[in-house]
């Protein structure tokens, strides 16, 4: 599948703090906004070319509204810290849209499972399903360490039923979001998940148990984001010879059928 992509000098429209360590940045980037599909990502520059931090940072496309693109990101290091200090009208170089996103399943019931910042790519997916599959059920299961940590839930509520779980029990189910999933009674279910690796692995194991198809959105360190450097390899499930041993998150993914990774 050939994806069209470009480098766009985006213009920050707003960059607001949404919880203790996360921000949402809305950027005018008409070209990329127009091409973006759910589950795809962009590579954003945090400095002038050749200056450090050298590499672009991969961030999921959280939302798209007309000519604007929204990124939901957590500040974890130098690059995201620089992003968090950007303000209105600042320019930001964006490369994208990149990667192979979610494929909307033909199942009648869609379950989106997000852990922490992993909720980011699921919003555009939910919107897309609601739009292209009117009447089909959408359930969102969101997990977080605590009540304060949840992100963007309200944006889901008008299109999906949302259930939440917290590690500390400060809101919703006291425990793992996977437990909520296990509790679902459904046959014709498609699961889409993004979050910490252990969580996604747990989700895909459950899906195998229940016979649901499952798509996972992976992360990996990236240099190019477009299949050139081969830096973003992750091992495939099963035994494979030669180059078949690895898949590349930026190009084959970031979204994979769960079986490709865990089986």
């Amino acid at each position: 599948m050939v994806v069209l992509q470009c480098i766009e000098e985006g213009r920050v429209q707003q960059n607001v703090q949404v919880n203790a360590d996360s921000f949402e940045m809305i950027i005018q980037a008409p070209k990329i906004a127009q091409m973006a599909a759910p589950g795809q990502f962009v590579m954003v520059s945090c400095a002038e070319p050749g200056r450090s931090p050298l590499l672009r940072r991969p961030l999921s496309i959280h939302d798209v509204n007309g000519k604007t693109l929204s990124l939901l990101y957590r500040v974890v290091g130098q690059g995201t810290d620089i992003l968090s200090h950007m303000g209105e009208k600042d320019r930001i170089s964006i490369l994208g849209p990149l990667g192979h996103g979610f494929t909307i399943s033909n199942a009648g019931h869609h379950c989106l499972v997000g852990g922490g910042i992993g909720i980011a790519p699921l919003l555009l997916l939910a919107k897309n399903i609601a739009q292209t599959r009117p009447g089909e059920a959408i359930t969102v299961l969101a997990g977080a360490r605590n009540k304060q940590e949840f992100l963007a839930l309200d944006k889901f509520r008008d299109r999906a039923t949302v259930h939440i779980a917290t590690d500390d029990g400060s809101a919703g189910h006291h425990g793992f979001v996977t437990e909520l999933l296990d509790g679902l009674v459904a046959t014709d279910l498609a699961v889409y998940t993004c979050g910490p690796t252990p969580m996604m692995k747990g989700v895909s194991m459950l899906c195998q148990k229940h016979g649901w198809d499952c798509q996972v959105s992976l992360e990996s360190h990236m240099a190019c984001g477009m299949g050139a450097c081969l830096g973003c390899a992750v091992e495939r499930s099963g035994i494979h010879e030669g180059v078949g041993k690895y898949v590349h998150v930026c190009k084959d993914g970031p979204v994979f059928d769960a079986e490709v990774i865990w089986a």
Partner: protein
Amino acid sequence: MGVDLSVKIGTLSLKNPIMTASGTFGYGEEFSPFVDCADLGAIVVKGISVHPRPGNPPPRIVETEGGMLNAIGLQNGGVDRFIASKIPMLRDLNATVIVNILGDSIDDYAALARRLEPLPEVHGIEVNISCPNVKKGGVAFGTVPEMAARVTSAVKENTSKPVIIKLSPNVTDITAIALAVEEAGADGVSLINTLIGMAIDVQSRRPKLANIIGGLSGPAIKPVALRMVYQVAQVVKIPVIGIGGISSLNDVLEFLIAGATGVQIGTANFINPAVSGELVEGLTAYLLKHECSLDDLVGSLRT
């Protein structure tokens, strides 16, 4: 554009001195939205070996101050698959194609040269005798003049195409290696490959690369690369191709002034996939503006 940017490496003549560095530009196709490969001096494709290589386990890359470490492990589908699946695509790109080859033995290098010989789509061969990532192979050839010379002869004996030997910077005296491969018939040398480096995650006390060590590239290594290009250009008569941290027109000019006939753009492709094409335009504009030719520039360092 009214200015002659062409350069010659052996019998191969390039439109201009701007090339892409092996392993940083895939096989060109990924970059088609950003660069018309036909506009570049050449594209040097990802290293090819006799047999497929899965590459190293992840993590394979880590950012460092002003650079990055990679331990891709020379992942590639092997020469047969390259010929079957990539050559047709490369033909359509209309680009001058230099194929980077690597091996575990002299025979591997010879075999690769032989396999590529009949292909008109392959305009030149770059021999990687220096990749720091694999425990076996690579390194040894690039660090001993005699070994480097033997690889060079083996490749030359099996091809009529221009042969560029890509030198390792992880040596005491790079000029000795350069002279040895020139003596052995190399049509040109390209330098530098990556410096061997390492990074550690303090919390887990594990190396940040699964391979423990990796190759350092990017602006951080530019001063070392420029020094080596200058030293090598002083002693060899064959063309020298400068590589290492080149991201801007100013960087390109520094390498040309130091004595490089051409340059390769590596890590910078990741930050700006359009950079190679932009540098061709930038260099053209510079020469026009300063009414000087490439020859005026190359090796014009005033000391």
